[in-house]
């Protein structure tokens, strides 16, 4: 009862000084709005990264040959040709955690159709490759085992390549294209994947059977050498264990002894994604710090205005004490006033924060996710800030001497 009436009183007092209360609120509003907006943007970025990881397949492990070392000179990543189809087959046999095994070779070359052409990466892949990479077709069909065995002259195009070498509206399926002067029939179009984590266009690609690439289109230095091996595990949780097993098998196969470094590199999508996530988390933490500083400043604003209010209302406090208000009553009155400032500021801040996040999505096109946790935490924080910074002025008011307070002009 008492508390309720005190809240009503506090609200009325704030209403009397609307401008002052409004300016006091501003600090809290900005702080809370900043927290909400920042967390929303951060969460949105995180989600986007996770989506990109998922677009490659979260449970995929990639194995690349390491760089060549000739004397002291280290070649580019993958310049060694130590990884082979046989390696992949061995992994399939010896690592039971793996559900699928695929491999690919890659070369950037010219693709021609009619009088149009483009330079794009051409991948020679095993049949399981597209499935491991979770790459669906938007039209046409995948390679068959027969295509693979017979090194059939067929190709599946990425959306970017289709846009480059076909006239708008022209049907790519069944069309003939030439790669390195070898004619290939288009049997499928990949559904768009968008940019990779590194910003490269994942749709700028042509996929052909591995055997076709090796024997007829791209050629190879050693038969059976591959650019990369891609394997997938049944569950994401198995990635770690599978990675370790793959390393053991590969080291044994490549006769790498003791302390010698691997001649291959193993990566999982989760690892790659983690780096990105860390970056966005660092950003979020930084922005949170800024938001907290803003809340702190807001809190000091509340304290300042309450101190003014205590001085201004010294006489009123004296009257209240004279008619029987105990210290706790006076204390409560100012604390509730402070908390009300916090609550109102928090609520307005939350509204502004959500609005800011939405505007960011609309104007800048960044994905944002309003996190309920952030809203709740920001709200509680603003109330606590109000309470904390209200304590000193409230205590000051409660400790006033009633006689002096009554005489105060």
């Amino acid at each position, binding site marked *: *009862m*008492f508390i309720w*009436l005190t809240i009503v009183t506090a609200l009325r007092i704030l209403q*009397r000084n609307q401008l002052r209360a409004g300016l006091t609120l501003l600090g809290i509003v900005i702080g809370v709005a900043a927290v909400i907006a920042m967390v929303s943007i951060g969460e949105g970025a995180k989600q986007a990264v996770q989506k990109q990881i998922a677009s490659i397949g979260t449970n995929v492990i990639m194995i690349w040959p390491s760089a060549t070392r000739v004397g002291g000179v280290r070649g580019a990543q993958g310049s060694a040709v130590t990884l082979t189809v046989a390696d992949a087959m061995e992994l399939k046999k010896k690592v039971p955690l793996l559900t699928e095994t695929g491999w690919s070779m890659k070369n950037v070359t010219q693709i021609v159709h009619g009088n149009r052409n483009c330079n794009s990466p051409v991948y020679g892949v095993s049949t399981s490759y597209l499935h491991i990479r979770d790459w669906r077709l938007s039209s046409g069909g995948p390679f068959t085992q027969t295509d693979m065995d017979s090194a059939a002259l067929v190709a599946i195009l990425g959306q970017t390549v289709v846009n480059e070498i076909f006239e708008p509206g022209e049907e790519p399926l069944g069309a003939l294209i030439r790669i390195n002067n070898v004619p290939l029939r288009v049997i499928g179009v990949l559904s768009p994947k968008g940019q990779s984590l590194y910003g490269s266009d994942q749709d700028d690609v042509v996929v052909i059977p591995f055997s076709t690439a090796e024997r007829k289109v791209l050629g190879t230095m050693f038969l059976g050498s591959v650019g990369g091996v891609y394997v997938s595990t049944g569950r994401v949780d198995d990635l770690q264990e599978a990675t370790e097993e793959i390393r053991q098998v590969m080291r044994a196969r490549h006769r790498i002894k003791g302390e010698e470094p691997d001649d291959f590199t193993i990566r999982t999508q989760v690892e790659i994604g983690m780096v990105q996530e860390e970056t966005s988390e660092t950003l979020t933490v930084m922005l949170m710090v800024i938001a907290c500083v803003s809340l702190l400043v807001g809190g000091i604003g509340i304290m300042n205005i309450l101190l003014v209010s205590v001085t201004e209302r010294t*006489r*009123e406090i*004296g*009257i*209240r*004490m*004279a*008619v*029987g*208000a*105990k*210290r*706790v*009553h006076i204390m409560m009155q100012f604390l509730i006033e402070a908390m009300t400032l916090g609550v109102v500021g928090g609520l307005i801040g939350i509204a502004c924060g959500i609005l800011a996040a939405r505007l960011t999505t609309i104007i800048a096109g960044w994905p944002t996710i309003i996190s309920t946790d952030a809203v709740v935490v920001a709200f509680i924080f603003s109330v606590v800030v109000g309470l904390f910074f209200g304590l000193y002025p409230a205590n000051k008011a409660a400790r006033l001497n*009633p*006689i002096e307070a*009554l005489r105060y002009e």
Partner: protein
Amino acid sequence: MWKVYRVGDVEVQALRGLSLSIDQGEFVAIMGSSGSGKSTLMNILGCLDQPSRGHYWLNGIDTGSLRPDQLAEIRNQQIGFVFQSFNLIPRTSALENTQLPLFYRGLSVREQRALAVAALQRVGLHGREGHSPTQLSGGQQQRVAIARALVATPSLLLADEPTGNLDTQSSREIMDILSALNQEGMTVILVTHEHDVAAFASREIIIKDGQIQSDRVTKGHVHATEG
């Protein structure tokens, strides 16, 4: 009710071995020039202050040993204040000002309201419950202050120069109300330096240099009934 009371302050000896006892139902006027110590005496009588030496018994309770919150409770339950400068809370309606002691007593809103309306009616301010202090004349403000003092049905009403800021007509009205309250059994202690105001009281105490100079019984009630 009786009290023996002494304050010895090192720097300013506002009260020097003043001893006084006031019975229930008395109407006492305390007079004296400024600086005589009458305000200090009022503060102690009103439990706003405590004597630095000596004792003050209010209804048998030695207030000297009480903590601030206990004093607040006594003020709330047993004492009503009327000040020279009215001391109403600004921008707050007459009704809410009157409710204030009941609010701190923890009564329900309905009870507070009913009692406050009755108290305002008692001082002749029926229909002005919603007015804020600035919308009321000085006399009306003081009547709100009296309503606030009597709403808690205190045993002691302390009036510190209640007519100091008022014209003769308003003063007369205020004093009539105080007299009437006294006749209903409320102890009224009045501080004033106007003799015609003091004349309403039945006992006149003159204080000088923190000591009682004279203490005599008058026939104050006659005036009140005439008014």
